């Protein structure tokens, strides 16, 4: 496999240089870790690409933990984020920690946070976990920087909402407040697989273990993009998170998804197991609240 029409492989050293290159009138793609691009290339889907812009020399490869949350550069790898998450050892980061465990070590060492969200691929694991964490995406263009909630980056299957000339520079994961815990679970064909269905949840409880905030995110072909389940969240908020509530919340995700059928699974199977995955993620998170 190859990129038969590739004319340039740029390795800019500054953000300004990168922006200038992205502004050119060429079929241009941004390369970060490159794992997703190689997947597309191997399937012959990048034959029209004329230029690649490698953004790994822009100094965007740091992960920093601050009082407001975790800031990660676009080219920071899963492994780098994993180290920070592991060091914090916090229940509220449980879902992200779970999700980062799934990809094989070679992918964790290569795939980057910017790449995994910009791909707008619902079958990935880390974006689902990031949606449950209310992560924000930093986007740069020649006009300046903007920050949007992660779900707003996803337009549809493999299509993001970036404007021409824009690229993702980083992510921000806001620090949880109060007593919070998260969890992520995944249904996969083998241990090196895209998700058939995955689910990430984030729960916050107040006095008396009443749920004050809940986020339920689902991915893996339950829709064109990673989605939230407002129906499930509504059931959870205000409840005491007992088994019956978790079950009801799991059942409720059915209303918020529109699963795909493909050679990996039918829509019906995804519909049925999304409920199970959501409930299991909730159970796992509740266990972490204890």
């Amino acid at each position: 496999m190859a990129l038969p029409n590739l004319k340039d492989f740029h390795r800019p050293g500054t953000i300004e240089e990168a922006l200038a290159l992205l502004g050119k009138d060429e079929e241009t793609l941004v390369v970060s870790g490159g794992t997703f691009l190689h997947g597309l290339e191997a399937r012959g889907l990048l034959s029209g690409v004329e230029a690649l812009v490698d953004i790994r020399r822009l100094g965007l490869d740091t992960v920093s933990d601050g009082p407001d949350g975790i800031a990660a550069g676009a080219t920071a790898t899963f492994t780098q984020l994993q180290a920070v998450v592991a060091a914090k050892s916090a229940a509220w980061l449980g879902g992200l920690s779970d999700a980062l465990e799934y990809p094989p070590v070679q992918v964790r060492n290569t795939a980057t946070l910017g790449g995994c969200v910009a791909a707008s691929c619902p079958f990935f694991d880390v974006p689902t976990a990031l949606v449950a964490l209310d992560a924000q995406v930093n986007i740069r263009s020649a006009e300046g920087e903007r920050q949007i909630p992660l779900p707003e980056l996803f337009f549809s299957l493999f299509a993001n909402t970036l404007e021409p000339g824009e690229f993702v520079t980083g992510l921000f994961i806001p620090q949880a407040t109060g007593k919070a815990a998260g969890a992520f679970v995944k249904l996969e064909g083998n241990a090196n697989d895209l998700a058939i269905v995955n689910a990430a949840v984030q729960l916050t409880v107040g006095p008396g273990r009443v749920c004050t905030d809940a986020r339920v995110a689902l991915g893996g072909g339950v829709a064109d993009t990673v989605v939230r389940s407002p129906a499930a969240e509504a059931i959870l908020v205000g409840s005491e998170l007992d088994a019956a509530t978790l079950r009801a919340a799991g059942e409720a995700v059915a209303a918020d998804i529109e699963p795909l059928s493909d050679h990996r699974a039918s829509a019906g199977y995804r519909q049925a197991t999304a409920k199970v995955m959501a409930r299991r993620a909730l159970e796992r998170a509740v266990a972490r609240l204890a």
Partner: protein
Amino acid sequence: MKNLNVVGQSVERPDAYDKVTGGKGYPVNVRLPGMLHGKMLRSPYAHARIVSIDASRAEKLPGVKAVLLPRDVPQVKFTPVFFVPVQAPSMVLDFDVMNGETVRYVGQPVAAVAATTPEIAEAALDLIDVEYETLPAVFDPEEAMQDGAPQLHADAPNNVAKNPSFQFGDLEKGFEEADYVFEGVYQTQRVHTCYMEPRVCVVDMDRRDNVTIHVSTQHVFGTREKLAFALGIPESKVKVVKAPYIGGGFGGKLELTAMEPVAALLSKKCGRPVRIEQTRHEDFITTTRNPIKMYLKTGVKKDGTFTARYARSILDCGAHATHGSEVIMVHGAFGIFFNYHAPHQKWEGYTVYTNNMIGGGYRGYGAPQGSFAVESQIDEICAKLNLDPIEMRLKNARKQGEPHPFNPAFTLATYGLEECLRQGADKMNWPAARSAPRQEGTKKRGFGLAVHPVWVSGCMGFPDIYEHSGAIVKINRDGTADLATAAMDIGSGQITTLCQIAAEELGLPAGAVRMSSQVDTDTVPFDAPTHASRVTYSAGNAVKAAAAAAKKRLLEVAATIMEVSPEDLEVCHGRVSVKGVPDKSVTVAAVAQRAESPFVQMTAEGPKPTTMEEKGTIIGVASQAPKSNPSPCAAQFVEVEVDTETGEVKVLHAVYAHDIGRVINPKAAEGQVEGGFQQGLGYALMENIQFDGETGACLTSDFLDYKIPTALEMPRRMDTLFIETDEPTGPFGAKSLGECCVITPAPAIANAIYDAIGVRFTTLPITPERVLAGLGKL
């Protein structure tokens, strides 16, 4: 059983050092000076007439050195299957390298390019203009058999390429005698061997038609014969270089494909060597295990005794019959018909053309499909009639000493099936495990078993199949020996096993026999392929015979040195000694030095002649067919856990007991069984090559879409048991192992799933989605 010195020891693989330090010996690493790179243009249509091909734009692309079109390729039809003669009457002779008129599956090669880089060759393919006229396609074999279906080959009415049958007794009478009759339909899927090294070759063909080929193959002589035929040149013009080892085969590199002749013809056009390395996508659409649908009807007495069995098997061979001509036979014989006693039996097989990809060889060769039907149905019978699944099988199984079911000239001289079942059951703690209260909740556990009663150690006795093997054993002056054979090591340890057999026969220590890594079809005797579980038994017997011939000469030379009769000598641990007088001995090295020393030797007293009769390299050569075809057998037990909310199935524990005769190398044998289980587990639960129902294009042609078990899907407990028997016709009592261990995992797992959740699955793979549907939750 007699104690031996080298055989029976887990000696280190001689090739392992090379492989952990980089592995230079694979054909994929062959790089020749001036080498060009070839790529094939493949049909995007499942069925079409080629109207025209115009390659003029491709020829002009800088870097392109040659374009090959169908008109440049000899239009001959043959069987590309290595283990039969190229025009074998029992095979369907329908394969051609590059058909200029019709394409019959998505991926059929229609043109090829050689260029200075693979990327340029690939780019050139886009510049070849092919005009097609699409034709109606058919993908389901039973639809293909209907009147009015598209006809794929003119001489195959209703698309039936082959229609063999076996029968004995009176079927009607047998069913009348039955207390119960069970009927079922079992469907198996298309799976890939997933060898890790891709199909690859480097071919140099000169203008006088001398061909040298380096290729990842399971059979150097089969490659020679079929390639020569495809090119229309005498066999002796083709030299196939035997690679020291290849990156897996499992039956998947057992036939000529378009790759080798295309590379040869491109090479001849360019006057330079041409390399073709297939992509993983190309490998996925080149050959597969044939899917078979089986209609199985069995009559039984109340006590479980079979009275009659009838089966009809429909094999989807895809666009060309190739292996489908033979898989159907092996499937009928060893997958269904001969496994158990039944007084009245009939089996009918249909090898049917469709516009799917071509089927091929894969470990088990028709038996895994048959075993899934037979062993699943036995489980259904046991459940319904409340019979013990072990005793029920033994009641119908063959016994040691009976005539071989396939060829009554042979005997089941060693047959440890009952011990396999008894010891396997003990290891699984079978009765207690089966009757223990099961944990409730959403995950349910179950236990299952399956046996494979009759299998092969090669092909002796089969019509049209090559079986003989050859070997050359040469004793070196340092007391070691070199072994040369055409038998390929495809990963399963053939080098190790054959060297152990030679060392044992020669009385040399383990490690003193080395497999020669630099041989080709010009220099070693013919050998049948590494397939049909045959190498340890058949090639092992030839190696033993060659070593015995070398030993005979060794003892003759030693006898002149020691001034005794050769009959009074024996050789052990590298020394030749007088029987019963271990002190009176010489080293093998000393004998070999004497044999190769100059005839007249200078001494203090002047030149002195030695003995003429002792001169000459000590060498032994053998080329022979084996005496028999003994049956290994196996019993498999598994414990599974079914997640009743997601349908996921986990195998927790697997016990696999085999009678493979004497075990030559226990660690290597365990490795075969454990690896066989990985393939069987994948077959049972996840592997499935899928196609677009409209276009016939493959949807699962990489490891993202085609799932095979990783280390995490494998059971944490795997117990491998060997019930050692002493096969009188085997080398040091050995039979065979390669395939037996891949046959039973699917039915054993299906039976365990039934035990866990009470749902019977008759279609493979048993995916989570099928399980959930079976539970009524979809």
